């Protein structure tokens, strides 16, 4: 009997031993040749090389035929970027000059451009086409004697995408409006960036939603558009790259910025960029975010100066606000959420906007000494009373402080007084108080554009113009928004950018809006200085929950940036690439198949694996979670940590330099926590992603 029991026990022990051996050998989670054969390879992609090849292909295709003004070579959306654009190529026997005109529905919506000088080879950019129409395009060809001939082309375009936001024009008086188009910049990757004419009609849009999030777009002195690129460091808008591009979608320069840029970039007199950014070790190696201003050398793309706002202000001051997602033990704190920067050429000092602090602060970047603070006096007492000396005193009536503001601009000098400076900003009016107890409820609140006349010697602030209160809570925008003074008319173009609405009623929950739980609308109003509204348009969601507009800028449709020769030069890449190397993590010995992934981007570029997307845990999105990715071959593995944001979002750029050549299955590992404590108990997951990567570069 005893012998029988012993045999049974021994058998069980052997079985358990074999099972343990199998589990701990890792064989259960090791890819096989068969499993690798079934999964999808990660493609290689480089926007600069792709666009260069596209140009060469166009030229090769063009060379197959013989094209004249009467029979031109037409390619619509040449870069697969702006479906409402085209290139027209042809030759003329003698050097001629060409102008192009796209017929609009009235003279304010008709756009004409004359291209360069006299030449026989012509590459004409066509911008400003209507969607879903047979567009009338006119080419006027002029010879050196002034003789002209006119050629007409019809370009049929497609309707707008099914999820394009709804646009409703309430007021349009083009004759009183600033000429140009409104560049409507998206904030989140569920909306489009597009161009509107004076009639509120779409005349261009970028098909990709992966770039330009929640960051200003400016037309540079060279005529190119400056925007954030499409490599995300941390959701939803901290971007590793900047692009100099044109409205056809051609990228001329990609700047690599390890610190990641968000919200605002400006061009300085010498061409350098000043951008709102982070410590470069954010998000996990630095305990705060969005509180650094960086200066980027235009020639090299390198970050040559970093101005840390924690050395200017006290980061423990924390007013009541609606930006805070309420995460306990978050890896970093968003105490400033800096969203705008300006540079005062008179004294080389920097002005920043912190919406969380409801403060506009001017400081000396060399010494960090504060010049002044434009802010309500609320909350600058106790531990923060040392800042009271910098607070500007209000003069004149009416006067209201700004709350949660966006988009500060130093206006051109009008009084010739070197002691004064005029600042235009968009005042969201968020909460309108330092404390929750005194805060204004969204249904009773309003937003506005406002100009403050600041006397830096007397240390006073005077409100000299404002508009927005008239619109009441109907235009209340808890977050986002802009105000731009227009050069020709002096009108102010106002973007009420982030109007959170539940059942049509204004609410304040920004985080809920960002993750798609609350609808976000926007409204664009162009107003004369006498208060007459000359344009008023509402933007509401269509399928997606997001119809926010981060910023609106009136721009010219045609700039020097669309005049270049195809194939002449590939876009260049400047700056320093930041990628994450392998890390360590205790991997389970068997799969826990609970994580499903939705990749919005997944590609290899120059020895890096770039990805961005979101994940669900057992089919559900969790506010807090983190995922790592495992590159696993049959005999080795490398683990990389992504930068995880809220609601299952992740972004990563992994440096494959240490990865030995071979074919690797990509697994995901990590998990989620219930509740809002980042240090809460993790529910684990570990499973294949369905993708593999071929690493061929030697480390």
């Amino acid at each position, binding site marked *: 009997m005893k012998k029988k029991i012993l045999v049974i026990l021994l058998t069980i022990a052997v079985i358990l031993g074999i099972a343990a051996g199998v589990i701990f050998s890792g064989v259960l989670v090791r890819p096989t040749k068969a499993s690798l054969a079934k999964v999808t390879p990660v493609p290689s992609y480089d926007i600069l090389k792709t666009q260069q090849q596209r140009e060469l*292909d*166009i030229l090769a295709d063009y060379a*197959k035929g013989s094209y004249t003004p009467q029979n031109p070579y*037409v390619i619509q959306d040449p870069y697969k970027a702006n*479906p409402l654009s085209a290139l027209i190529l042809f030759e003329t026997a003698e050097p001629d000059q060409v102008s192009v005109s796209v017929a609009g529905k009235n003279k304010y919506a008709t756009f004409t451009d004359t291209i360069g000088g006299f030449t026989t080879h012509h590459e004409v950019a066509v911008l400003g086409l209507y969607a879903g129409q047979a567009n009338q395009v006119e080419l006027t060809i002029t010879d050196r004697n002034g003789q002209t001939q006119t050629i007409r082309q019809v370009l*049929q375009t497609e309707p707008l995408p*099914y999820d394009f936001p709804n646009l409703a024009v309430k007021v349009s008086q083009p004759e009183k409006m600033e000429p140009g188009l409104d560049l409507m910049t998206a904030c989140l990757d569920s909306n489009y960036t597009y161009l509107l004419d004076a009639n509120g009609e779409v005349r261009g849009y970028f098909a990709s939603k992966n770039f330009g999030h929640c960051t200003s777009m400016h037309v540079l002195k060279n005529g190119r558009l400056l925007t954030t690129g499409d490599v995300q460091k941390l959701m939803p808008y901290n971007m590793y790259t900047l692009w100099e591009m044109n409205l056809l979608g051609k990228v001329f320069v990609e700047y690599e910025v390890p610190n990641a840029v968000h919200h605002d970039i400006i061009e300085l007199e010498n061409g350098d960029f000043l951008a709102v950014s982070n410590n470069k070790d954010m998000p996990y190696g630095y305990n705060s975010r969005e509180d650094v201003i960086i200066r980027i050398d235009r020639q090299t793309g390198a970050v040559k100066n970093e101005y840390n706002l924690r050395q200017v202000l006290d980061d423990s001051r924390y007013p009541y606000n609606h930006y805070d997602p309420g995460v306990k033990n978050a890896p970093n704190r968003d105490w400033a959420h800096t969203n705008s920067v300006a540079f005062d050429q008179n004294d080389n000092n920097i002005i920043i906007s912190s919406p969380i602090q409801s403060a506009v602060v001017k400081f000396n970047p060399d010494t960090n000494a504060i010049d002044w603070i434009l802010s309500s006096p609320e909350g600058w007492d106790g531990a923060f009373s040392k800042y009271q000396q910098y607070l500007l005193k209000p003069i004149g009536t009416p006067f209201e402080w700004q709350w949660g503001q966006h988009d500060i601009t130093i206006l051109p000098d009008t009084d010739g007084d070197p002691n004064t400076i005029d600042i235009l900003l968009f005042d969201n009016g968020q909460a309108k108080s330092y404390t929750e107890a005194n805060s204004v409820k969204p249904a009773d609140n309003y937003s506005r554009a406002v100009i403050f006349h600041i006397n830096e010697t007397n240390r006073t602030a005077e409100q000299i113009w404002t508009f927005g209160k008239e619109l009441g809570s109907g235009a209340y925008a808890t977050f986002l928004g802009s105000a731009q003074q227009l050069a020709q008319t002096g009108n102010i173009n106002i973007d009420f950018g982030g109007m959170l609405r539940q059942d049509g009623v204004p609410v304040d929950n920004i985080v809920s809006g960002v993750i798609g*739980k609350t609808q976000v609308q926007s409204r664009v109003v162009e107003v004369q200085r006498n208060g007459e509204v000359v344009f008023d348009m509402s933007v509401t969601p269509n399928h997606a929950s997001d119809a926010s507009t981060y910023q609106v800028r009136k721009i010219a449709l045609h700039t020097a940036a669309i005049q270049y020769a195809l194939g002449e030069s590939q876009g260049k890449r400047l700056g320093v690439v930041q990628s994450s190397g392998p890390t360590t993590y205790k991997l389970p010995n068997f799969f826990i198949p609970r994580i499903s992934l939705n990749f919005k981007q997944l590609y290899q570029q120059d020895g890096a694996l770039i990805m961005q997307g979101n994940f669900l845990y057992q*089919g559900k999105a969790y506010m807090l979670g983190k995922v790592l990715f495992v590159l696993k071959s049959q005999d080795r593995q490398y683990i990389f940590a992504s930068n995880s944001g809220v609601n299952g979002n992740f972004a990563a750029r992994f440096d494959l330099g240490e990865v030995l050549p071979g074919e690797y299955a990509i697994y995901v590992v990590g998990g989620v926590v219930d509740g809002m404590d980042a240090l809460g108990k993790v529910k684990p997951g570990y499973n294949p992603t369905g993708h593999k990567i071929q690493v061929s570069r030697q480390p």
Partner: protein
Amino acid sequence: MRKSSLILNILLLFICLVLCLAGCQTSTTPSDVPSGNSLAWQIQAARFEIKDSLKTIESVTQYNGSKIDVEHKQSPQAGFVYLIINVTISKTSNQSASPFDWQWLVVKDASGNSYHRLENDTFLEQFQYTPRITGLQLRLGEYNGWMGYEISASAATGKLTLAYTAEGSQQEIVLQK
């Protein structure tokens, strides 16, 4: 008795499985669609579907696990059905620089009727037919995606051909059900 019951159960399961598979096949069957001859543009139809309407429930997952379901529906005009085709259109390496013009790509039914691509089939993406192939005139390169036609419901049961006529020659692909 036990053994016969087991066999019966297995048989029932097998029948269920066959019915299941057959059911799946009725709506969206990838057909063995041959490619046409090589022209300036090569067209390949990987699969197609015939639908009398399109319906989708957009499920928005919230961070707390709750979901909001929104139903979207799209129907063709009365007496018609949607023919949704996944195509790859690529420029061949021949010396022609002719663009690909959508007006020359038609679906023909057994009665000789021709149907052009819908002027607006952007809705396809809403119903998970992604990517949708652009409707712009094509000049070079390769394009892949879904496109939509509205064809007579009676024609949908007969022979359907995807035909591209350009440069004096014709490329035809029979859409086999």
